[in-house]
């Protein structure tokens, strides 16, 4: 569904990704893990047109999206949920949902907001509340609701469980599984290696901006040397 071929990208003159190639199968959950500063978040930003792409190609369902503007990529059915700040703090939950569904026609937007509230009934309690007045968990729920609103075919999650309590992190993990079971493809950047292996079908390990290893998550979790070397995990 999403293919990156030899992508080199970064910010201005500082290159972060080097010849990154990656393939995300339709309907799968693909995880990207790696040490801090390895370029995981930059990878997602590159897909969404938020960095400078020096060379390489990014294709979504066979269509070239390299160097397209973010608002054009958003219209292709991709949603990007960044690590922090994926909500407008000074807007209410309802206004955030309206912006999330900005590309939808008015009637459809209203209908989608109602549907999303049915999926996340908790949202009903704080629709008119400003985001800055909401808790971390409530914000993350709203962020996912915003992502769902557009009926995306692919969601890019950037460390969705970071800074969350274990209870909320589990809830978010469960929601990601639910989204996937609804047919949405997921590309997930995750710091929590165990969680990444548990949730994903395929995992890519990024080190210093390069794809160091890739494989099926169920196999990688058993890879003793790799786990010890990078993540301090015992198989």
């Amino acid at each position: 569904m999403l293919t990156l071929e030899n992508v080199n990208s970064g910010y201005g003159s500082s290159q972060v990704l080097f010849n990154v190639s990656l393939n995300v199968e339709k309907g799968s959950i693909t995880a990207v893990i790696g040490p801090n500063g390895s370029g995981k978040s930059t990878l997602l930003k590159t897909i969404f047109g938020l960095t400078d792409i020096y060379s390489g190609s990014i294709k979504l369902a066979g269509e070239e999206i390299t160097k397209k503007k973010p608002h054009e990529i958003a219209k292709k059915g991709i949603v990007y949920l960044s690590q922090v700040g994926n909500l407008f703090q000074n807007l209410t939950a309802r206004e955030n949902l309206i912006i999330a569904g900005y590309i939808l026609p008015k009637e459809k937007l209203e209908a989608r907001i109602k549907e999303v509230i049915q999926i996340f009934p908790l949202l009903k309690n704080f629709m008119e509340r400003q985001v800055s007045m909401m808790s971390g968990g409530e914000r993350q729920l709203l962020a996912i609701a915003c992502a769902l609103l557009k009926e995306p075919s692919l969601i890019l999650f950037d460390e969705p469980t970071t800074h969350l309590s274990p209870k909320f992190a589990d809830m978010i993990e469960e929601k990601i599984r639910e989204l996937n079971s609804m047919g949405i493809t997921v590309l997930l950047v995750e710091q929590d290696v165990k969680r990444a292996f548990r949730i994903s079908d395929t995992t890519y390990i990024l080190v210093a901006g390069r794809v160091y290893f890739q494989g099926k998550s169920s196999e990688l979790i058993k890879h003793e040397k790799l786990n010890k070397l990078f993540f301090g995990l015992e198989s």
Partner: protein
Amino acid sequence: MVVSLLIDAIVLSSTFALLSFGFTLQFITIGTINLAQPNIVIFTSYFALLFCMVGYSPYLSIPVASLVGGILTLSIWKILSYMKKRGSDSNTLLITTLAISLIIYGSTNVFADYISRTMGTRRIFGLSIYDFNFLGMPGVLFFSLISSILFALIFHLFLKKCKTGIAIKAILEDQSLAEIHGVNTELLLNAMWFITGCLSGLAGVFYSMWFFVQPVVWILFFVRMISACIIGGTTKPFGSFFGAFIVGFSEVLFIIVSSNIIGPGMAAYRSIVPVALVCIILFIAPKGIIEAIEKYRRE
């Protein structure tokens, strides 16, 4: 005298309300002040003079002045946004607006000289004699006040009820996040800057219909605009709207009180008022009046 000063206050406040609103929006989007905006106001006011000289009502110059203001402001935005994309910081952008400001100031002088030589007018002009009277009051009093209030109301409803308005609020908070959600931020920012430029053109016409204009008064415009912006809150467009009214009415109050106590010559010192107000506001409410009120309500 009091009636004349009240008209002064209303026209001045309304004009600066239109200006300061745009000035604050521009400040939020580029992270620095646009020093060129006051010169655009003066430049466009000469179009009102031009219309009067060829025998038309100055009100008819509003579409032309607004369009010229809009195009000039949009051009400034295109230059600044290009520089911003190339990594220019807010200091560089500020210096750029100063350079553009001086270019427009020079152009205004050329324009003023051309009109005065070809049409026999003076470089310093006021157009109140070309205005009509309604209920014994000048037309500009009603036009400027209604325009500013109407604009504030429409814009408030637009930001509150309309999807595009909510998108503008989103852009003002986080441009790249809005872009991620599919908002064409470039298009909306272009439109927003164009509208703020149109408001400058409108303000230029209104100002010239009650006050005397000459190219050099841009500096007084700048002081009042930035004062209104700081008093209301640099991140609150509607705050600057109220800030403009506070500045306008305070100036008049200062003239009335100081003239009674010291003498009529005190009117010449009216431009001290905005600066003094800014000092007081920065001391008691550094983030502006609106933020202070919101904080009080939250507590």
